[in-house]
């Protein structure tokens, strides 16, 4: 008997031990591990419907809305919660203009328990569906981007994907500000997504995106859009681009690239066409500037002369009248024949007026490549300007170690170098605004729905490139280009327009392409206190091709429009 009692006692101890182990294990799982486990469990207990944050608006500098949102919704169906599938499919296909068979197949053959039926459905159609009071059908706000002016500022604004993500332009660059943070509605459901009776719905509101106020002026932009449309038509050009910038801050007032497209009718089906049309050529493409680049060579000479550099030429210096220069045995010639006294006895101002190539060769050869490159770099050629835009090109500048004299001779009048339109405009602005380089920018302010400013973008200076005196001298020379020289077609009586024309032959596969030119003009007014600087670039115009006759008139018409719009009085 004592053996049996001992055995019973041993079994009792073993059972007690097992119970204690169970308690310990339960304590560990439920109390110590519990919170972590519950967190994971909550994840599977709920299904969420996204509440899409409203995308931020984009306005011009005065608050004109350039990109906004329409009130649309996504319709989706949680299959397991549907009571009458046939009736639902019929109603959906009728209301949403979809094939019945397509809707039925989508709802019945997809594996997912949650099916998106259609996006960007208008409010009145949603109201119609709501009347049916279907179970298992859900609606969530989404974003339909609306651009009130259709084909306007297209390449700058860019576009969004159908689900509202920025794809190009400012929509892409500022996407993280514009997109906001989506919220969601959490429903308590069973394992297949059927809502539980009496289950709670948790609403997590969306944080709407921030709005952008651009530096763009709607009215000036309109002038440019009209001017470039006309340029495309009149000159049958491959492309026509124009930008207007405030030379004293770098704020871009207008930026227009043609051809473009209607932002409310994006050619999404043709990807290569869409990419070509939405490209902002002024920022992302490079070209050989030709004579507009002489502004840099002139600025370098004037500054070096003022610095007392003996290699620089005095403004009074009369250059050789020959049409040719020989550099390292190669003949460099002027575009003009120099016959009948043309380009004879010119000083620097005269050289700019007539855009005489050999004189700029003289300057570059005399200053030497180290000095020339000092200015090329100071004016930011060869590197990005830092504009708030994606995909900016940095241009093509031969490295200083590789530059031959004959290359430098051509760089002096804008060949053997490639720049973006934006680089040229920003550099010219620095040359004539008193000598300070400002980083160009497109956005002036980022603010929220209550008008509270989140970020204000101040003009950003990269420092002085030439002295104020040099800048003043240069500006008066450029004023004479418009008054007396090749820029006459931009002349506006009394408003002191200044500028420089450019005509560059295009190269294809390394050889000059016959009859293909880039005609350009960079100009500004008033010359003594520049407020608006415009660059016009017409690519491959048919017929006439000189910058003076093709590009300059558009700068003039836009300047006249600005004078009119802003009621700018005649300078004293």
């Amino acid at each position, binding site marked *: 008997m004592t053996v049996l009692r001992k055995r019973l006692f041993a079994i009792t101890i073993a059972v007690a031990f097992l119970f204690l182990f169970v*308690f310990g294990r339960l304590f560990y799982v439920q109390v110590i591990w519990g919170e972590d486990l519950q967190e994971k469990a909550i994840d599977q207990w709920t299904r969420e419907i996204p509440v899409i944050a409203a995308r931020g608006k984009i306005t011009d500098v005065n608050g004109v809305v350039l990109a906004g949102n329409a009130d649309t919704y996504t319709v989706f169906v949680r299959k397991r919660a549907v009571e009458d599938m046939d009736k639902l499919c019929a109603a959906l296909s009728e209301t949403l203009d979809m094939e019945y068979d397509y809707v039925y197949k989508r709802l019945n053959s997809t594996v997912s328990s949650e099916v998106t039926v259609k996006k960007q459905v208008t409010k009145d159609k949603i109201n119609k569906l709501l009347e049916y009071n279907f179970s298992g059908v859900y609606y969530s706000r989404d974003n339909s981007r609306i651009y009130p002016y259709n084909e306007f500022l297209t390449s700058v604004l860019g576009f969004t994907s159908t689900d509202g993500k920025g794809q190009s332009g400012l929509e892409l660059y500022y996407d993280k500000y514009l997109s906001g943070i989506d919220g969601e509605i959490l429903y308590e459901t069973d394992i297949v997504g059927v809502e539980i009776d009496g289950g709670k719905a948790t609403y997590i509101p969306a944080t709407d995106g921030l709005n952008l106020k651009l530096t763009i002026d709607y009215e000036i932009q309109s002038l440019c859009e009209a001017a470039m449309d006309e340029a495309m038509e009149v000159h049958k050009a491959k492309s026509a681009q124009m930008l207007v910038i405030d030379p004293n801050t770098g704020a871009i007032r207008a930026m227009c690239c043609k051809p473009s497209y209607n932002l409310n009718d994006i050619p999404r089906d043709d990807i290569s066409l869409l990419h070509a049309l939405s490209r902002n050529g002024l920022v992302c493409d490079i070209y050989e500037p030709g004579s507009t680049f002489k502004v840099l060579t002139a600025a370098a000479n004037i500054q070096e002369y003022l610095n007392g550099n003996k290699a620089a030429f005095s403004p009074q210096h009369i250059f050789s009248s020959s049409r040719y220069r020989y550099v390292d045995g190669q003949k460099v010639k002027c575009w003009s024949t120099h016959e009948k006294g043309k380009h004879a006895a010119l000083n620097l101002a005269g050289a700019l007026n007539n855009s005489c190539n050999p004189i700029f060769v003289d300057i570059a050869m005399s200053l030497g490549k180290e000095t020339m490159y000092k200015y090329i770099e100071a004016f930011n050629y060869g590197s990005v300007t830092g504009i708030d835009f994606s995909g900016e090109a940095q241009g093509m500048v031969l490295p200083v170690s590789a530059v031959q004299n004959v290359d430098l001779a051509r760089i002096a009048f804008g060949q053997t170098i490639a720049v973006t339109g934006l680089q040229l405009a920003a550099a010219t602005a620095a040359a004539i605004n008193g000598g300070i380089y400002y980083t160009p920018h497109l956005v002036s302010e980022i603010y929220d729905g209550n008008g509270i400013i989140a970020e204000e973008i101040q003009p950003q200076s990269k420092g002085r490139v030439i002295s104020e005196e040099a800048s003043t001298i240069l500006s008066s020379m450029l004023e004479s280009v418009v008054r007396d020289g090749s820029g006459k077609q931009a002349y506006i009586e009394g408003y002191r327009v200044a500028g420089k024309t450019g005509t560059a032959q295009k190269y294809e596969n390394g050889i000059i392409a016959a009859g293909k030119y880039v005609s350009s003009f960079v100009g500004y007014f008033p010359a003594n206190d520049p407020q608006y600087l415009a660059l016009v670039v017409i690519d491959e115009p048919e017929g006439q091709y000189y910058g003076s006759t093709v590009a300059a008139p558009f700068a003039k018409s836009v300047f006249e429009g600005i004078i009119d719009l802003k009621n700018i009085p005649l300078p004293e």
Partner: protein
Amino acid sequence: MKLSRGGERERGDILLIVAVIILAVLGVVFIYSASNYSASATYGDAFYFVKKQAIGIAIGIAVMIFMCFFDYRKLAKFTIPVSIASFVLLVLVFIPGIGVENYGAKRWVGVGSVTLQPSEISKFALILFAASYFSAHPDRSKTFLGILPVLLFGLATCLLIILEPNMSITVCVATLMMTMLFAAGMRIKHAVLMLIPAIGAGVLLILMEPYRLSRLTAFLNPWSNPKGEGYQLLQSLYALGSGGWFGVGLFNSRQKYAFLPFAESDFILSVIGEEIGFIGLLMFFALIGFIVYRGMRAASRAKDLFGFLLALGITMIFGIQAVINALVVTGSIPPTGLPLPLVSSGNTAIIIFMAEMGVIFNISKNGALTF
């Protein structure tokens, strides 16, 4: 003997019966909570499992009352018929038309809508056989040859159950067999001798059916395959973890919304733990522990070796199943399909367990420390 004890003996252990009924009723409440959602989705009746269990409990109480007044000593006479019935039923499981297959295992025999789980009966048959055998030949427990009949009976039962297959019940029956032998006074060296082939058999079983190995590893890291082998255990842990200290409240389980499979049967403890928390489960297990305690008490006071072994065996199978079930739902051992006695949905089990509790009551009524 003290008079007070004598009085108690005559009354029998009524507290045990009360505890058993409370546990069974609590079981129905939790079966309702765990199954109402899936039952109304599957059968269109939220009370489907509740009704079934209620019928089981009603029959169970009737049988239990009968057993309370049925002299347990007469049970020895039924040893041979019950043993034969047990083996016949276990074999019938494999006969097409009678055996019923569910989830890939043949564990039931059925005629029409009435099904029976023979392994539930086999456990009692083993207890009865061992108790009868050793009470008839008390000295045979000391020799290996003497324990051989019980050993063969147990192993044959195990073999038939593992073929269904039902590894968890097999483990239970094997443990029960060892406990019976141990309680009857088997020599320790014989026990050790038997453990060696037992371990070998375990390894062999795993090698025979590869799914056993993947189940074995699944419990160690259920997140390695959350949608496959680890799914059930993860859902069980989510339920228990969500319960925390005090639970989410009765009927408020979230895991029962089809996340947790077998919520009303093998994994009912997870739902209970979710709803009443750690503190609640502690009290729940106190009730189970109380039943075990009263069973051991009845065994220790049994008048003869037959009553001692019978009460101990019944108590042990109840306790072993409860503990193994708790270890499964907490991810402490590989998951196996094993119901929580008196609580999980399942008619054969509830009727047999209630009947067995009636036997313990009868033993306690006639109990005396005469050995």
